[in-house]
């Protein structure tokens, strides 16, 4: 491909910006929280798909014997992505707890109504 990246990367970039748009537009807080998770999954997909050429084997000794270096997955990216996934779940958990606290106070799941009631005091 002449653009410089493959179709998997393109799809993950589109998903990332789509979820960004969804977070801006949606009025439902639950939807915003779910789309934060979707954003995180697409970031992981983007990093894993760098250097993908259609035939990649995992960087484990049993499976990578006899393959050239271009066909082995990048172990550094994968190790960091495991960390990123676990941190993403912590972020989701903190998000949900903040949502529950907000619901307790304002009795609604709508961003705009929360804003109105905050203004009203």
């Amino acid at each position, binding site marked *: 491909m002449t653009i*410089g990246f493959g179709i*998997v990367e393109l799809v993950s970039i*589109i998903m990332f*910006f789509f979820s960004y748009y969804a977070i801006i*537009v949606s009025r439902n807080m639950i939807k915003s929280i779910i789309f934060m998770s979707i954003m995180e999954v697409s970031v992981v997909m983007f990093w894993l798909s760098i250097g993908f050429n259609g035939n990649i084997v995992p960087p484990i000794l*049993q499976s990578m014997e006899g393959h050239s270096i271009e066909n082995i997955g990048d172990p550094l990216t994968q190790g960091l992505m495991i*960390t990123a*996934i676990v941190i993403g779940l912590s972020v989701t958990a903190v998000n949900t707890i903040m949502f529950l606290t907000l619901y307790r106070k304002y009795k609604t799941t709508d961003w705009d109504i929360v804003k109105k009631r905050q203004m009203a005091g």
Partner: protein
Amino acid sequence: MINILYIMLFLWMLSGVLVLIEKKVLSMIIWFFIFSLVGAFAFFLLGSPDVAMAEAAIGAFSTIVFIVCFEKFFKLRDIIQIKAEEEEIKKENKIKRFIIPCIFVLILGSMFIYFLPPETTNSYLKELYITRFMSDIGGENAVTSIYLGYRLYDTLFEALMLVIAVVAITHMSYTDKIQIKEGERSEIEKSNIANLLLRALAPMAILFGIYVIANGFLTAGGGFQGGLAIASFFICRFLIYDVYDLDMKKINKLEELVFILIVVVAAVTVFQGTLYLFPEQYTAMTRNIYLIFMNALVGLKVACGFIILFYRYVAIERN
């Protein structure tokens, strides 16, 4: 193989779009679960079984968290609130609400694609890691060797983030009562088939967790994935018996102790240069014992953290 990957990517995008279109909360959560599972399968096809395992476990866990948290919003539609406020908000300009964010995101995305570096990447570090990890760190799985050897500090900060999340949730939850009253049950009706299936599968989960932790240095797997499997055993236990009898304070203490132990072992390993500065002093046996021990510690820590998160959510939801 590549065709399956494209089908998976199509399903992935479709389920992501359906989350936005969907109005009911439960359907949104189910579509998110499908999104995570399809994503995990795509990760596997992209050549990273470790990340795929972690993603599948995390997708299931966050679905459970969402269902427990949003149980009381299942009957609500997307926008059912007080009518007067509703009418007033609806009068707002559509252009301001939908078109301007769309243009903004499109400009941002096209800038991102335009400034993406060209395809020629430098694979120096990758070659170094792949050719040397077995003599430097040990084990046969390059990913485990990286997050327990070369990049140990990243694992440390990941564990710290989990501790901070648990502390934040314990402090931000609005109730002081952690204990659930006797006889208080969930409003969701219990299904006999699901109960039987959980009873059959729960012991398998803990066995699988121990297997994944112990074999993490040889094949795909490791501390995070095994810890999540062990935590899922305790979630199954709660779902079967519906009792709240674990002492959260003891588990919290255990988690903190394991975290301190991880920091101490990591500091000793890094500052001594134990693993890769003096490779000739350490046999393959020592290296394997170190990897299994660290994997077990990380797994215990992750399991404790997620058990606390789940039980805390249940306590909040029931109170």
